[in-house]
């Protein structure tokens, strides 16, 4: 066909018929640096680049691109695939459905719990918030105050024992006919065995439909350590990535997706009660690649 003839002529002219290790060397370096600047984990970057190289080397160069450009185009497509090609909804099977919100200190859990309650209420649910952080000064007050903006009740129980509080919340939800329970937990380190055991215990008692780990978008290389540990100990159902209204590139998202393969269900885009949105993988790919 005329198209094939033209293509072949183009190939001869450009002299770069196939993608070789050499002619994408610059693009590989550029992508590697860009992903590291974006805080993608170093080991993930190396594996990701190798996976792409394996796929791409020997491929025909499309006549409308240089091998470099084609490599970057493929990187972008692969990024989107790893980030999760489509939006994943909350899976709320049980009556009442239960959502446990966990993560490191200061990541945005309490704020995200209230935002989730607001969103679910807007969608016709009757949520109950549970204040299971008895450690941080004024954590319970904080949840009560923000929940007013969501117009959702907060169960506080004895305000002393997280295990007793979650048990009490289950009973309260039956009494109140709540159809979703959202458990706010204290921030904790993945290396704090006693606190991680507390989470396991809460999960055992509440049998959650969702265990969402809240991750700060500005987190760097260490995110794979905490995400991996939380996932191993709790079997996460997904992530919420907060503070994306800043200018952090958010490479942490590629790292946690690559390592755990659990979906990012929501992103935090402001401190306000309506500041929780669905995660769009293609928009994120562009931001990470820079």
């Amino acid at each position, binding site marked *: 066909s005329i198209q094939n003839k033209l293509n072949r002529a183009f190939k001869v002219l450009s002299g770069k018929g196939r993608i070789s290790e050499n002619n994408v060397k610059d693009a590989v370096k550029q992508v590697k640096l860009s992903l590291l600047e*974006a805080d993608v984990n170093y080991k993930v970057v190396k594996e990701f680049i190798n996976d792409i190289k394996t796929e791409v080397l020997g491929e025909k160069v499309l006549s409308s691109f240089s091998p470099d450009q084609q490599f970057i185009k493929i990187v972008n497509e692969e990024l989107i695939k790893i980030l999760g090609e489509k939006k994943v909804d909350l899976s709320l099977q049980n009556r009442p459905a239960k959502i446990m919100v966990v993560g*490191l200190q*200061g990541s945005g859990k309490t704020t995200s719990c209230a935002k989730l309650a607001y969103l679910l209420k807007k969608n016709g649910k009757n949520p109950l918030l549970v204040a299971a952080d008895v450690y941080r*000064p*004024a954590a319970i*007050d904080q949840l009560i105050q923000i929940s007013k903006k969501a117009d959702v009740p907060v169960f506080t129980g004895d305000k002393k024992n997280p295990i007793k509080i979650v048990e009490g919340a289950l009973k309260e939800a039956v009494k109140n006919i709540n159809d979703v329970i959202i458990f706010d937990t204290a921030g904790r*380190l993945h290396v704090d065995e006693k606190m991680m055991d507390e989470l396991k215990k809460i999960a055992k008692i509440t049998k959650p439909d969702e265990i969402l780990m809240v991750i*700060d978008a500005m987190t*760097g*290389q260490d995110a794979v350590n905490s995400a991996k540990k939380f996932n191993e100990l709790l079997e996460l159902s997904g992530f919420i990535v907060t503070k994306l209204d800043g200018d952090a590139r958010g490479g942490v998202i590629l790292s946690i997706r690559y390592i755990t393969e659990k979906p990012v269900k929501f992103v935090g885009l402001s401190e306000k009660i309506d500041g929780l949105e669905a995660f769009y993988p293609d928009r994120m790919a562009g931001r990470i690649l820079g």
Partner: protein
Amino acid sequence: ILKFDKLNDDTLEEIEELLILSDMGIDTVEEVISKLRERCNGKDDPIEVLKEILKEILVISYEDKEKNNKPYVLSIVGVNGTGKTTTIGKLSNKEVKEGKSVVLAACDTFRAAAVDQLKIWSDRTGASIISQGQDADPAAVAFDAVSHAKSKNKDVVIIDTAGRLHTKSNLMEELKKINRVIKKGIPEAPHDTWLVLDSTTGQNGLIQAKKFKETVDLTGIILTKLDGTAKGGIAFAIVKELEIPVRYIGLGEGVDDLKEFNAEDFVNALIS
């Protein structure tokens, strides 16, 4: 524990990986690696040379503003959730134990229960607190606290500010306003402004430090949550490029979990 008996390409690659994984950032890492190459001769222990290079970056002189100012006014700033309020609790505990009278200014009038949280820390440590409650003007609270400290002859004022992303210009303007108003009470105040940085923060930490420095002239950094597995390597780029010292590190959520920054300990923990 890293241990090499000579410097070769494999050794350098392992060191490079360790440093990148610590959040040091590729530019700083490359500078360190090239210094290591030029300084390391056949009989040096590469790890000892590396430690020296890293320590040199972190050691920087600073003025002790607390010694000659009464009241000494310290402002604490940073993005959301890094540990500012908790760090203020720890700092006030240290000061009170050293016999100083401390006033905390509740200038986070925005976030839910921020004032309640600071009040608990003032109760725990014996510091007094000046607050005008939720939604008050932070600058007015700061002025109030500084005036109170002056008239009551207090030693230290520590200002807790709301977490804010450096990309929000109206919030950065608010910080400038707080300082303008404080200066009406004490022209040289705040004597110190320290940025509280979460040690799990990646490369964005450098951008944060730059933006806050442009806005309120930072004089120090506090690195929190070093009791986790994050190494806080972004501190190297911040100290080097902005010439600001790390003053303290946070090692937990308790009132005593604060340590004065020591470059040697920090570097040893990073390399281990």
